[in-house]
């Protein structure tokens, strides 16, 4: 408490003041709980504003956030339209698989040629 030390104030007996201050310093438990809950709610208001304030100022503008969202929607739409609306087909085989298939074909060709040779030698 501040500021009353230099003021002449003999109008209110100390007993009356003490009685009022003593009463005012405490509350019933249920009232105390409700007051504490209200206090936490009020302080949370300040905390919420502080968290928002920690964002770079650039991102706090609602108009900017709305514009960015709109731009993202437009970009996605443009991409869909320009791609013909369909996905590129994925290759059915990978490169290593293509190499294996080509080797197999070569092997089969060689086997065929070997068989022809044997046939020709057998006929001849």
């Amino acid at each position, binding site marked *: 408490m501040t500021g*009353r030390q230099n*003021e002449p104030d003999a*109008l209110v007996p100390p007993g009356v003041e003490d009685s009022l201050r003593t*009463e005012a310093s405490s*509350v019933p438990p249920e009232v105390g709980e409700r007051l504490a809950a209200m*206090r936490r709610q*009020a302080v949370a208001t*300040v905390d919420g504003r502080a968290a928002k304030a920690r964002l770079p100022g650039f991102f706090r503008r609602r108009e900017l956030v709305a514009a960015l969202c709109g731009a993202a929607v437009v970009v996605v739409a443009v991409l869909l339209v320009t791609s013909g609306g369909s996905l590129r087909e994925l290759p059915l085989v990978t490169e290593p698989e293509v190499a294996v298939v080509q080797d197999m074909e070569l092997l089969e060709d060689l086997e065929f040629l070997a068989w022809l040779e044997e046939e020709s030698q057998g006929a001849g």
Partner: protein
Amino acid sequence: MNQGGSQAVALNRFLAEVENSAFHMARYAVRDTDEALDIVQDAMMTLARKYAARPAAEWRPLFFRILQNRIRDWHRRSSFRGRFFAEPVRGDVDRIEQASAPESANPMEQASLDGARDQLQIAVEALPARQQQAFLLRTIEGMNVEETAQAMRCSQGSVKTHYSRAVRALRAALKEHWQ
């Protein structure tokens, strides 16, 4: 700790200091616990939303000014309701009937003290609004005349007038208990 966090801590500390006395002030004014709590909650939220960024030294007069404004609004609404809807006066208990009269006080010291306390509370509740505000701000919160004038949004001379009238009224009501 960042500025927002330290501000929240300081606000929490301040509100914890004043919440009990604020409740009692509101309770004296409206004579109803739930209404008093609503008023205090409103005052806390208004301070947090609108004035938390102000220097902490300004919070006390600002908070009690908000509190007094809410009390005044409550009285206006009550007056409006009473004029048109004839609602009974709200209050938890008829304190006057329940309080012991000084003449019939139990000779035991504790009963006498309880009777004096009841009489004091009744007398404070019965004060006109501005006198009650000035008296409680100076007595319970220990505000000086200047701080009280800021909280009540009136001149320092008005504070002195309201306060002295309150003291005279209490002295007359309490008689032998005024000591």
